[in-house]
């Protein structure tokens, strides 16, 4: 793509945004995408559309596993394409705008956009970009004071996909709300990616009746039922039509095999060799600091991020034999201000472990743990909480900002002064 497509005003806007990002990163007061993206969109509101011209794009959305699936997908496709993607977690308009501003048009050949998109922004972003494929993972309760309700989201996606017949869809056929959104599309690749948390899927999005789940799928008396999957997950195998692909990942948990199956579904639509895609994915051991083990004060700590009940069901699968678990719960805007969802998590699964409640909302968690009969201590500072553990192997599970705060603390870059500068900046550009 020739640089001339970018007019002087957009070139100015991207330059300012890059400078803003450099300042943000140099001062270490943020992730370096959201705030510069806001600056960019303020100077040039059409930035997403104009910066993504002639970039075929894959969008990935859903309540959980967006970041991990996007990372797996990037890796799977990177042998065949030059990938333009989000800065981790920056999945709303400003984050995507800024990611595109970092695009180097001249160096690209055979380029492909792979972006994770916040559920509420899928239609907005999907219309502005040259979207070829959309992958829909799952929908469940999450941060209910920020994103609105799951059924409404499913309905909005359905309207958008119904009006966009040229977009191919890769969708999880185990989640009724995803099927409701995707089934209007003429060409859907159905992946049996599983659904651990069913509480938001029990009433039928078509008729309001009760959906019956069984080992072989789900069905409603109105006729709405699980489509036949094109891609199946069987233990560590992904089955495509006649082909069985062994998926032995460095990332823990059965949920990540399902995420890899979605990535393989996307790869197959792009005619990428699936064996080499799997080889690339299996070398990953972390995604933006998640899943990896770090040494903290003599402990070996696995870092997990989980922000809602569905995510927690996967955490219990990944805690494994670690004797100690530190849970960090915050309630900043990015976390959702209301941690009522803690009561939807079956924390009873942690009985018998050494548990420490941490984070700004450690007291909410502590009351919840009492009613789950989980013995625990409260130590609000996550690093102190980890240090206080008796066990050698510790799993730390944080919700969004709690996880980010711990990572910053580990980088040694946490500073009360810079935090207040960041909060001031967020307030000005909100």
């Amino acid at each position, binding site marked *: 793509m020739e640089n001339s497509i970018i007019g002087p005003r957009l070139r100015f806007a991207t330059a300012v945004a890059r400078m803003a990002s450099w300042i943000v990163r140099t001062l270490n007061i943020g992730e370096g995408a959201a705030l510069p993206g806001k600056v960019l969109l303020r100077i040039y509101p059409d930035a997403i559309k104009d910066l993504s011209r002639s970039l075929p794009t894959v969008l990935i959305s859903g309540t959980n596993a967006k970041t991990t699936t996007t990372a797996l997908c990037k890796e799977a496709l990177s042998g065949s394409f030059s990938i333009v993607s989000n800065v981790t977690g920056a999945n709303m308009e400003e984050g995507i705008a800024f990611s595109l501003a970092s695009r180097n048009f001249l160096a690209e050949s055979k380029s492909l956009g792979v972006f994770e998109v916040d559920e509420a922004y899928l239609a907005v972003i999907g219309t502005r970009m040259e979207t070829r494929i959309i992958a829909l993972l799952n929908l469940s*309760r999450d941060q*209910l*004071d920020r994103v609105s*309700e*799951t*059924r*409404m989201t499913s309905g909005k996606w359905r309207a958008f996909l119904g009006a966009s017949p040229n977009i191919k869809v890769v969708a999880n056929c185990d989640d009724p709300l995803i099927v409701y959104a995707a089934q209007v599309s003429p060409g859907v690749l159905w992946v049996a990616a599983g659904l651990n948390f069913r*509480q*938001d899927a*029990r*009433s039928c*999005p078509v008729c*309001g*009746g*009760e959906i019956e789940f069984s080992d072989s799928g789900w069905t409603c008396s109105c006729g709405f039922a699980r489509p036949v999957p094109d891609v199946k997950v069987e233990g560590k195998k992904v089955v495509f039509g006649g082909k069985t692909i062994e998926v032995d990942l460095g990332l823990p948990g059965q949920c990540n095999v399902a995420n890899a199956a979605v990535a393989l579904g996307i790869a197959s639509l792009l005619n990428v060799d699936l064996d080499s895609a799997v080889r690339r994915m299996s070398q990953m051991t972390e995604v933006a600091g998640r899943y990896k083990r770090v040494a903290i004060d003599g402990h070996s700590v696995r870092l997990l991020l989980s922000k809602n009940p569905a995510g927690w069901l996967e955490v219990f699968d990944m805690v494994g034999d670690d004797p100690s678990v530190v849970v960090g719960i915050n309630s900043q805007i990015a976390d959702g*201000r*209301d941690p*009522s*969802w*803690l*009561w*939807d998590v079956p924390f009873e699964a942690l009985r018998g472990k050494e548990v420490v409640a941490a984070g700004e909302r450690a*007291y*909410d968690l*502590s*009351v*919840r743990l*009492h*009613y789950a009969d989980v013995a625990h201590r*409260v130590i609000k500072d996550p690093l102190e909480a980890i240090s206080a553990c008796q066990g050698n192997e510790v799993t730390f599970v944080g919700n969004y900002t709690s996880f980010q705060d711990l990572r910053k603390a580990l980088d040694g870059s946490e500073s009360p002064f810079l935090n207040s500068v960041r909060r001031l900046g967020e307030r000005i550009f909100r």
Partner: protein
Amino acid sequence: MTRVKVVSVFPDLLGTYGDSGNALVVSKRLALRGFEVTLLEANLKSGVPNDGDFYLIGGGEDGPQARAAELLTADKPLEHALSSGAALLAVCAGFQILGASFLGPDLQPRNGIGIFDCVTHRFEGPRSVGELIVRPADELGNVGLLTGYENHQGVTELLHGAQPLGVVAAGNGNNYGTKVDGAIDGRALGTYMHGPVFARNPKLCDFFISLVVGSLEPIDDPDLIAAHENLYLERINQVIK
């Protein structure tokens, strides 16, 4: 009475905001007083029994809310249970369907169950979202300030002198302007407070329990009491600082 039945009403329809925690808190606080507790999840399949002692209904989305109202209007299990001495707590969407009317997903009014004399309209302004603090009505006795988290678009208007659960000290509650939250009518309580409300306000939970079983012994679990106290004070101070 030593055996009691706690009924979580349609958690599969109205269980979106962690309100199922109320049933757990009621059950445990009964068990700690020596009651033999059966906690029943009354879902779409099982239907709602009318022989429970405590009924808890939570918040949820518009479609499932309307469905729950239809089912509860048909068999009237809640009215039967209340008239035989049970107590009922309804939160947010659950509270709205206990009124005379509420709004369906198409924004048209639907008939409610009519336990409270109130109607719910749509508010065209911003959604009510945030911490809610309520000064309790005299009927509640010495439960102290109540704290919770509200998140709703509908506004509820109390009619004919229906009694609110309390006066709003911070937040919105039923309606912009009137500054009251919820409703109380005998052993039926309605509120917009999530949290869940009984986890945030154990004294309100004990008041609710005592409506059915009479006066209660204090709980003998210092750690549990301290955990509640820490959370309660933190939430009050967070808003009133």
